[in-house]
């Protein structure tokens, strides 16, 4: 999203989630928060996972949450990964982000966080 040009990490993660049996819809680089929200809506996503390395997370992530809300899809959990300072992570979670994961998070843990997020939605 935004001007972030890093897609190595997000592709590794997409692969890992796919290997865990999930269908991953990769939206690509330089999307707007609105595009991400519409994609989640049309695909009936169980989880929105955002990888951000640009430092713009405090702008982009709340924007995604806002657009999801506008589309009546705020029940879709949002998970964020990337270089996020602790204080920001706390604030994002306060705003409704399901989980924030930093660099070095083992892929296994990542998979189980996404699974937890998805199942939380199917219960509600």
């Amino acid at each position: 999203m935004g001007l972030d040009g890093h897609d190595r990490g997000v592709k590794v993660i997409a692969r890992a989630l796919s290997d865990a049996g999930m269908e991953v819809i990769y939206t690509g680089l330089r999307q707007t928060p609105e595009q991400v929200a519409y994609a989640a809506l049309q695909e009936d996503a169980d989880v929105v996972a955002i990888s951000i390395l640009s430092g713009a997370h405090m702008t982009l992530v709340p924007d995604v949450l806002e657009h999801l809300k506008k589309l009546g899809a705020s029940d879709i959990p949002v998970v964020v990964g990337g270089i996020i300072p602790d204080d920001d992570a706390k604030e994002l979670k306060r705003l409704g982000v399901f989980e924030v994961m930093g660099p070095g998070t083992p892929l296994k843990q990542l998979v189980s966080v996404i699974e937890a997020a998805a199942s939380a939605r199917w219960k509600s």
Partner: protein
Amino acid sequence: MSDELSTLLERFKTRDTRALARIITLAERSADFSERLLDALGEQTHRRAHVIGVTGAPGVGKSTLIDKLVLKFREKGKSVGVIAIDPSSVFSGGAVLGDRSRMNRLSVDPQVFIRSFGTAGELGGLSRGARDAIKILRAFGKDVIIVETTGTGQNEVDVALYVHTSVVVTMPGLGDDLQLMEAGFPEIGDVFVLNKSDLAGSDASYAELKNMVQLRYAERAWKPRVIKTVGVSAQGVDELLRALEEHYDHLVSSGELALRENAGFRKEVEEIIKERLEHELKRYLENRFSEQSVNHNPYKVAKSLLGEFTKLLKV
């Protein structure tokens, strides 16, 4: 559950995208849901709509071309649904679906609905979920529905049964005329597209493709159009749009539209029976195999198990 369906259908009728997306998910998950859904939707799944299949080898530029094509349909005021199918992993069942990343500009247009599907173990043809998605989008009122599949041979023959117009996309350098003559050459194209036609060698490829199409389709009433395009710059896309509309008009005026829909319906019934049988057979064999010892003659074992299985069948 049936309460859930009726609430969803209420919202579906008011053109609620969220309900549409949800219904497609539930139909993909359960054949029973689909059965009840189609009962409720009735004739609406046969609303007038142009269902277009776009197939071709990986990397020929299908998604980018569709992106441009949808923009043209939108300029004409048509609402569009796109079903983008990518292969799933045979091992994990998971998939990375990337077609959408080439169409993202479209997705904030409320009149465009894009949905990604994994092939979900289906080797040829359309998965049950994708087939139902076509019907659901029709009932929702989409004027045009585009189904994108990655095809490399005969599997697109089955896909062609579920669409009105089949577009086969290729590009320069994918194969010489001999390869076009071999069995892999799609015999189901209504429109052929040579995409990336700004690449070197495109004139020769175009001539070969055109020759081959003339040869193969000489006996048919509809002579497939062969069109050069450059997806990234939308070159040739107007012509492609015209060819699609011409073909649809041909289907209507020749009466072939109804024939195609009938053939698709029969095929679908066959597929549903096959899917159910396969499911039952797997369950049956799981139990029986544990008792069955290794034998030198698989034919004999298969015959006796099949006899037993068919007796048990009360599907």
